[in-house]
């Protein structure tokens, strides 16, 4: 019905020429503000954030001659004199704040680079007649060390793989090539694995609990159904922060749960239920259960009892009917509920922050940390790219399976 009226619409717009043009003008005039708004306030901020994960032009912009010279050098042996000359020339005209900024970028390569650069910039004398190489050596002997120059060479291009590699616990080695960072520095693969794992565990627990609940609600009489749905919706409608504060009150060492356990004599001393993984799982499952129950329920409630009855009447056993008839029908709901819950949990920030310990923080925490605490935009952005890729893969999967399940339902 709806489709026919649309195609009629489209056909008419094509035929009537000028009037059609006027109509399409109002149509796009209505659509444009929203699209424009989303492009500016949603897409642009995210794209410019993610770009920072691969684009870092500090060295190129502040030390242009040095960047060109050091890139012209093949990276083997000592750098040629022209590199030293370029650095002296660049530093003598560069703004102090820009130099500090470059220093911060270079510090990611070698931890003492920032102080070396700032010190060199303030010690350079314009009237010196010494050759640049000797001049730099006199300020700090570190300039003899070629690793500082190879580091400069890695940081010179505006497009840098540094942050993305770092986000995957990799680095560009001095002699070229890519390798793992030292084990004590490796953090982020662990964080990524943890994020994926926590999301998977929460998804699995929620599915196991949500399936019978959704089934029970869908099997109830219509009056009960409304009431039971309301009971699922109530916590769903309750603000996340309200629920989180409830869990903190409940799970603290001297909280309600521990008081009950102590009072009943089940335990002799409080058990730690918060600021660890247990607390994170409890709070996450509480948040995500409605997200799992509602989509599965909405599929189940549409399944006619006739299908299972037909299977029974043809002699199928209970389990056979369940696996061969009921489950395939519910499958689309299960898939979409699982993917939805996974996507939501993998990007969560607040719950682990308030209920988890330091070992329970996920990607979001580190994105926030590198934005606000250490102001390492490059690394924050690289981690954001990682998270975005996870979400895009899942959403792509959702689209793919969604199409497939539609076909199954049609067939």
């Amino acid at each position: 019905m709806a489709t026919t009226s649309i195609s009629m619409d489209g056909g008419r717009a094509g035929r009537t020429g000028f009037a059609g043009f006027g109509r399409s003008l109002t149509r796009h005039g209505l659509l444009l503000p929203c699209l424009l708004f989303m492009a500016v306030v949603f897409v642009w901020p995210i794209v410019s954030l993610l770009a920072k994960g691969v684009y870092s032009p500090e060295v190129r912009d502040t030390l242009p001659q040095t960047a060109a010279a050091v890139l012209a050098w093949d990276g083997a042996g000592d750098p040629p004199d022209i590199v030293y000359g370029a650095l002296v020339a660049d530093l003598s005209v560069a703004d102090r704040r820009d130099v500090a900024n470059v220093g911060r970028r270079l510090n990611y390569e070698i931890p003492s680079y920032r102080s070396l650069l700032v010190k060199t910039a303030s010690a350079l004398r314009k009237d010196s007649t010494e050759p640049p190489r000797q001049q730099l050596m006199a300020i700090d002997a570190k300039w003899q060390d070629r690793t500082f120059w190879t580091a400069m060479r890695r940081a010179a291009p505006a497009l840098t793989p540094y942050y993305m590699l770092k986000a995957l616990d990799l680095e560009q080695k001095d002699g070229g090539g890519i390798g793992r960072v030292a084990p004590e520095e490796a953090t982020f693969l662990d964080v990524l694995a943890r994020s994926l794992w926590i999301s998977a565990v929460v998804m699995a627990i929620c599915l196991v609990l949500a399936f019978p609940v959704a089934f029970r609600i869908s099997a109830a009489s219509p009056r009960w159904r409304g009431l039971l749905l309301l009971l699922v919706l109530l916590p769903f409608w309750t603000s996340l922060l309200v629920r989180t504060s409830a869990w903190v009150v409940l799970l603290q060492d001297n909280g309600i749960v521990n008081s009950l356990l102590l009072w009943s004599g089940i335990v002799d001393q409080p058990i730690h239920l918060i600021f660890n993984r247990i607390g994170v799982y409890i709070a996450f499952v509480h948040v995500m259960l409605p997200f799992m129950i509602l989509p599965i329920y909405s599929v189940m409630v549409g399944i006619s009892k006739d299908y299972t009855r037909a299977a029974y009447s043809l002699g199928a056993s209970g389990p056979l009917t369940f696996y061969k008839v009921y489950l395939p029908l519910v499958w689309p709901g299960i898939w979409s509920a699982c993917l939805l819950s996974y996507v939501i949990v993998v990007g969560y920030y607040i719950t682990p922050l308030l209920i988890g310990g330091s070992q329970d923080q996920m990607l979001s925490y580190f994105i926030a940390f590198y934005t606000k605490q250490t102001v390492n935009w490059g690394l924050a952005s690289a981690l954001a790219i990682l998270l975005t890729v996870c979400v895009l893969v899942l959403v792509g999967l959702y689209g793919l399976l969604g199409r497939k399940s539609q076909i199954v339902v049609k067939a």
Partner: protein
Amino acid sequence: MSSPSARKSKADIWRTLASVITVLVFLFLLLPIAAVLPLSFSSGSFLAYPMPGLSLRWYEELLTNYKWLLALKNSAVVGIGAAALSTVLGLSAAIAMRGLGPRARSIVNGFLIAPLVMPVIIMAVGLYLFFSNLGLVGTIPGMILAHTVIGTPYVVISAGAALQNFDMQLIRAAKSLGASPWMAYRRVMLPAIRPAIVAGALFAFVASFDEVVIVLFLAGPGQVTLPVRLFEGIRDELTPVVIAAAMIMIMISVGLMTVIELLRRKSVARRGME
């Protein structure tokens, strides 16, 4: 092969198990909130049972403390602003999308509801970066713009669903009777989908009212909203005031969602009538 009665008893076992799990899940979902909320009426300052006595002192403190009042005001202003802007943008987009071909429509639709699946932290950090260049960090307008991004998808979804069932012939009929296009939309289409529009606007308000991550990044001390006050309360000192604030927030969001649900039923009934 098992006999029919054995099969029936086995099925009963599963059904009973499902019922037991359902009861336990409902207890798990509701009990924590129900157990904690009464503590806001405690006369003592510890969040534990038994309460030393009942009093409204924490509500009194909540309603006289300027920090909480400011947070309440900020939440209301940002929520209403974002809901209004979301409604204008989302509704006009939903109306325009009706005229697109199925392919273009599904692309536009996917684009407009993308904020629902984008991790909020990425939006928050991106907006923080973008707005700090524009001087919008630490301002109420900045927060309204940011929350409009997360509110618009709800209006698009809600109004879009109602428009799907709206018969465009009615607009044509109105025009043939001499109504201008604007008049036809305002007097014929809008009244027909009004419940869905109001529901979408309320959804957008609730989305803003509950949002905390973006506010954590964009708000200065003067723009703190209720959920962020709650966040600070949980992190710094958890007193019954926080629970009293939670109680108020529950009443606001559950009240609004109940209105949305009633509107939804009304619009379903309206469709049924046609």
